[in-house]
């Protein structure tokens, strides 16, 4: 599988990374190099092998349902690039 410029454009849009038109060829080349490298995996027979998602073999721990956090809006908002009173502010979203 090889990545063309249209695909690079689509991936960049999905990842919300602005890419200028003139950057596309070089990016496509780089991604193709990496993808070509990882395609070695197709040589491996993985028939029936269960995907490995975490090295931790324990069962997931659950926490008790109790209010133990929150109540510090000023800390949550302290690093915001833009805010209005207690809200984060972003460019207007049209639904």
């Amino acid at each position, binding site marked *: 599988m090889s990545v063309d410029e249209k695909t690079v454009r689509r991936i960049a849009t999905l990842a919300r990374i602005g890419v200028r038109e003139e950057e596309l060829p070089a990016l496509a080349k780089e991604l193709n190099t990496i993808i070509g490298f990882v395609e070695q995996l197709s040589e491996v027979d993985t028939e029936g*092998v269960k995907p490995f998602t975490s090295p931790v073999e324990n069962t997931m721990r659950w926490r008790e349902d109790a209010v133990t956090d929150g109540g510090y809006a000023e800390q949550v908002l302290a690093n915001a690039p833009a805010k209005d009173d207690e809200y984060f502010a972003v460019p207007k979203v049209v639904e």
Partner: protein
Amino acid sequence: MSKLTDLNLAQARDGLVSKAFSAVELTQAHIERVEASDKLNAYVLKTPEKAMQMAKASDAKIASGTHGPLEGLPIGVKDLFCTQGVRTTASSKILGDFIPPYESTVTQNLWTDGAVLLGKLNNDEFAMGSSNETSCFGPVNNPYQGANGENLVPGGSSGGSSAAVAARLGVAATATDTGGSIRQPAAFTGTVGLKPTYGRCSRWGVVAFASSLDQAGPITQTVRDAAIMLGSMASFDSRDTTSVARDVPNYEAALTGNIKGLRVGIPKEYRVDTMPAEIEALWQQGMDWLKQAGAEIVDVSLPHTKYALPAYYIIAPAEASSNLARYDGVRYGVRQEGVDIDDMYANSRAAGFGDEVKRRVMVGTYALSAGYYDAYYVKALQVRRLIAEDFNRAYEKCDVLLTPTTPSAAFAVGKEVEDPLEMYLNDVFTVTVNLAGLPGLSVPAGLDAHGLPLGLQLIGKAFDEEQLLRVGEVLETAAGFTTRPNEWWSA
């Protein structure tokens, strides 16, 4: 007496407790040395006032006999650990001047045990790199220079940590390892790097790169120092679902020097064609040292080793593409305005992320996208299991594995930055350990023909850091690595 900054962590600890010097004196000496070492670019933020406050508090505790295991010991912290009230950037422009209102579990453990913060250490942006050249603060220079005086990389992503410890800009440093980011820089700088078992140190408050691979650990001057640091860094943390509920043993007590009867596995697949003869020779030397100490050398096979890097370069970017989605210019970090919300996202992330981060986020996005998920991501996870099973089978025949840490010594700044794949190959011996979630330790073992440090890697069974450190110390003693870089950087 030698300079205070010549002491390793254990020596400094003992000197403080015996009141040979004070924490304030020790810290002051390190602050001054850090100040004089800007050419290394190891620290991205210095916190001398905070350090002096902490040192004073430590002296009071030592005086009252209420000191912790790391009381008064000045350390550097990789800028991937969130530090409350202290700017944390992951060496990325996108975090801007982010000031966390919280402290990572690992660093909190260190402060609770008395350690002193000298400042935040440089690293590859979001820990993505093997040379510390992707940092938004610029590359870190290895305290060791090339034969012609050229600047070398200190390894990465924990290049600030390895350079700082090698240059004695702190008695130890914290670091993180996702594919080799502790062990490879340790090998490049003649320091000790320990990547613990996945789940041993909490990930809470550590900026995430690849959640199923990331693990915090120390870079230190000695194996003993690594044991002491790990004793404080490790803990069970109920805030991290992947933290494993196990008691933290006394790692220092495990350093008995006795490895009689230990079976050391030598994986034949690590004998790659391109391996320089001197690394091959060092590896053989390592086997001999351990044999002389009473260990038995066993040949083992890890047949899927070849596929570890390709699997890693799907899994890590895939997780990263999702982990880095939160850097969107809304709640913190840098925003670049745009005509609408999506334009704002695209502009902020284009301006905030460096090339390598963009590359990996895009590869990860591609690997997870519709139509490719099974062919790439699921396939990589299946190969990951085969790699983990390779280790399980090997450990039926041996107790630890011995390998080189890296396929080469430190290279020149700028040499590999243009070729991502060549850069990725730095992790060829270390990345398998992350995929399997095992502990790995790099010990400085010798020099190459140009006088540059080389490391040997020991790989342990899950949660058997005690054994790993014990063997590591034996190896360290046998190698007797005492080389120090020429201090070209001090003014």
